[in-house]
């Protein structure tokens, strides 16, 4: 006999709001779905107010759009602290506070000197080096590539880096092994990659995570992964070797990809890390996983979910081998 195991307790209010440096803030409100419910119920009646605690001003109230999605036209300010207050009729008040992180990333096109430049220019190996100039609590890095099958950008499945202090919580168990495209006259394999020194490094599942403490000794890294496509790279006009806009992507066309650096708050980082863990469990074929009864981190008082904050920068990346051939040898 089937049994729902529904406790029939009052359903929790789930709140999801992640402040960004974009022009609009989004909030999602719903009632969690009980074991005997067919679906979760969106909340369309509530008062949700965002307050800037640093300046001591009320930013405004979120406006309900549809299906429990609420919006507020506002761009959060890095370094400021915010409070979210939500009142749903018939329920206890809900609140949470969060600090907006900041991030400053630059990318440099760096030409490494490998081999004998007098003879074999294509042995030279350029890099894009990313430098973290400010240190949020945690930095998450992922690559967006255009998927022709789906018709939209998706997060690349695997990514790797040479940064020695990256969190290894999401290793795939594989190592970076790009395709060998040819061999030079000495029989040395040449790889389809801009960063041959990453060959053999551990591949991470979708994300790289770097804590603030890890950047004490070193604040730069190179990265790659099993992703390819149209990743535009622009140099400053008449300044070959210097990336335009310090390597930040200002315009991304529909089918173009990029690398995203996200500085996140401590709460949001904890939520993200646990999300990945529990998502893996949900997909697991380990039967004992059904006995896990841990709750994912929440900083919502009076409800569940997350009030987080992130600042994102889209950065250039390239896997175009032609760059190698653009190298101008020393004379």
């Amino acid at each position, binding site marked *: 006999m089937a049994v729902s195991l529904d406790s029939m307790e009052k359903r929790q209010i789930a709140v999801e709001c992640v402040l960004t440096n974009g022009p609009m803030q989004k909030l999602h409100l*719903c009632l969690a779905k009980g074991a005997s419910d067919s679906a979760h119920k969106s909340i369309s009646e509530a008062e949700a107010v965002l307050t800037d605690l640093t300046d001591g001003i009320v930013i405004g109230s979120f406006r309900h759009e549809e299906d429990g999605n609420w919006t507020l036209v506002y761009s959060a300010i890095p370094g400021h602290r915010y409070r979210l207050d939500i009142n749903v009729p018939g329920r206890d008040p809900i609140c949470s506070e969060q600090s907006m992180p900041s991030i400053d990333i630059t990318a440099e096109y760096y030409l490494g000197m490998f081999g004998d430049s007098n003879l074999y220019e294509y042995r030279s190996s350029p890099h894009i080096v990313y430098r973290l100039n400010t240190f949020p609590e945690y930095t998450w890095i992922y690559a967006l590539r255009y998927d022709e099958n789906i018709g939209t950008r998706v997060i690349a499945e695997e990514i790797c880096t040479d940064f020695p202090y990256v969190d290894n919580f999401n290793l795939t168990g594989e190592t970076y092994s790009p395709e060998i495209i040819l061999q030079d006259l000495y029989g040395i394999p040449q790889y389809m990659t801009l960063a041959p020194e990453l060959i053999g490094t551990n591949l991470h599942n979708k994300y790289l995570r770097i804590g603030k403490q890890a950047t004490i000794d070193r604040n730069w890294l190179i990265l790659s992964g099993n992703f390819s496509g149209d990743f535009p790279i622009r140099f400053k006009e008449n300044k070959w070797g210097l990336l335009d806009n310090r390597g930040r992507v200002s315009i991304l066309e529909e089918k173009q990809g990029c690398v*995203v650096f996200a500085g996140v708050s401590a709460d949001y980082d904890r939520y993200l890390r646990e999300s*990945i863990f529990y998502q893996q469990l949900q997909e697991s074929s380990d039967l004992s996983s059904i*006995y896990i009864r841990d709750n994912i981190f929440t900083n919502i008082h009076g409800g569940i979910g997350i009030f987080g904050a992130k600042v994102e920068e889209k950065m250039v990346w390239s896997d175009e081998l032609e760059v190698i051939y653009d190298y101008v040898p020393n004379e």
Partner: protein
Amino acid sequence: MRDTLQASIKTDHSRRNELRIDRHESIASYIRAVVSPLGEGDPIRWVQSLPGVSSGADGTTSFYVRGGNMGNNLITIDGIPVYGYSHLLGLTTVIPSEMVKSASISKGGFEGGMGNFTASHLAIVTKDVTERRARTSFALNNFMAGASLETPIGKRMSLQLSGRISPLTLEYKAIHKMLPDALDMKGFRAGVGDTYLKYVWNVGGGRTLKAFGLYSKDLYSFQLSDDSDESMGWQNIIGALTYSSGHTEWTNFEAQLSINSYSSSQRQVKDYRGTANDLSLVSEMNEAVASARWTSVIGRGKRLSLGYGLKGRYATFRPGQLATVRNESRTILVSGHFQACYEIPEKLSVTAGAMGNWFMKLGQAQPDREGANTFHVVNPDINASFLFKANKSIAFQATFDRVTQYYHTLEGLPTGWSLDMIVPSGAKVAPETATQGSIGLAYDASAHHASIGVFYRHMEHLVYYKYGQTLFHGGLAAWEDDVNQGNGDSCGIESVYAYSKGDWYGKISYTLSKTTRYGFPDILDGAEFHARFDRRHVLSTSIMWKGASIAFTLQGGNWENAAPEKYPMHTFGEYEWTASYFSGVNNYRMPMVLRLDLGYQYRFATKHVHHELNIGIYNVTNHFNPFMLYFDTSTESWRMLALLPILPNFSYRIKF
């Protein structure tokens, strides 16, 4: 000659209790008359009908007294603990009913000498051979077939032998062939049996030497879905030597040596999302006990009796998984007790006792490792009972106990896992204690007996395993680091009314109680939650008339872990996933247990043979009373299983 011997009716005093609220006694004939799925009752079926006692899963022999766990009950056979006392998935007990002389259960005011339990003591006393010639009996019921022999050996010795085996596998195959879809499980196989031996030598001069042996085994395997195999089993091996002497009418002495081995296991092999999973749990406990006790009656009129004694127990524990290395823990418990009872017949009875316990958990093989050092602790137990008879019919009673138990039955096992995981106390896991008190009134006059009482019980250092998943991945190797200890409270009202006159006997018992757990630091941040078998209402009624019996049981549902609430969340790139929220522990109330049973007992004797026939229908209304929960991997959902639908039953015994 036929003699319709309705002993269960004629000896109506067997059903009547003394004027006590803390203790109940009964004799074998009535115990066997209690309606049961096997056609004849057993001591635990009888206990389950008493006030203050709630049952575990329906149909099984598990019971919970005043908010304690199943493992807090001490069940003894002639003073020897039995840890795995159930047979046939809990439908009956390991001791053959024809070997039982009497049973008594104490819920408070515990008498000295036993110790190492905190909820109740069910003392089963086996009978001795009294007849001057050999007697053989054969018994058959729905699920068990057995034979026994009782014979004197010369003038001073006697021997009792018994063996039982279950034809359950054959019965299942027959039913499955006739009604393929009638049963929820497939591929059922059972290996169930027990043997019992008791040898008595009356040495002379009031001295007796007894040897006792019991072996029981239960092993079951079945499939609840096409891609799953389940199995469970347990085993007892018990042996004891008892020497007793009654020097004079004033003093008695008893010394006992016993060994006891109990093991249980549960295993699930299931295909889950294309991957074979093999999960198992094993619990093993072995003990050797030596004890000596004296009782003396002193004073004019023999009003004062004293009891004192010493007991030493060496036990080993090995929890873990099948086919893996399991760490063994070794413990020593030495207890000395003293008890005094002052009695004015028909007026007053005051009992007070104390037990000093010295407990030691021996260090691991590598003494330099953390936690490896030997741990020892000294705890006192205190018991007191006061009984005042205002007149012949009315008595007032009060009891107080403070008791300690040096092993634990882990709470917090995952849903669907029911074996008793027994682990010892130690440096990181303090012994459990219970402090309880009760007061009540009893009335007994002519055909009527009634009692009502209230109790309160506070428990400390209960053990809860925090990480259900790690149990199956070697977590039990360091289980002490994965448990929380917390408290429990239980309070309630227990009442019973019985009427006995002529051929009629009727009883109704009702218990209203509440049992909670709290104070586990990592479980709901110490907040309160239901005990798993916190049944708010327990009603038990029975009526007997000339061998016919009707029994009705109504119990509030027990508590299991509820399924989580789910809500949508996102990560980078607007990727949506579904998060789970577990709002509590033991927060799903299972359906109530409702059961109506009918039975008829018929005894008659021919020239040389005594016959006893019990027939009946168990669960006449075919109410779905849940037995267990299990996870169906094919549908990825939880399901309930009832063990006992409407079930005609019979038992037939002949003795010659």
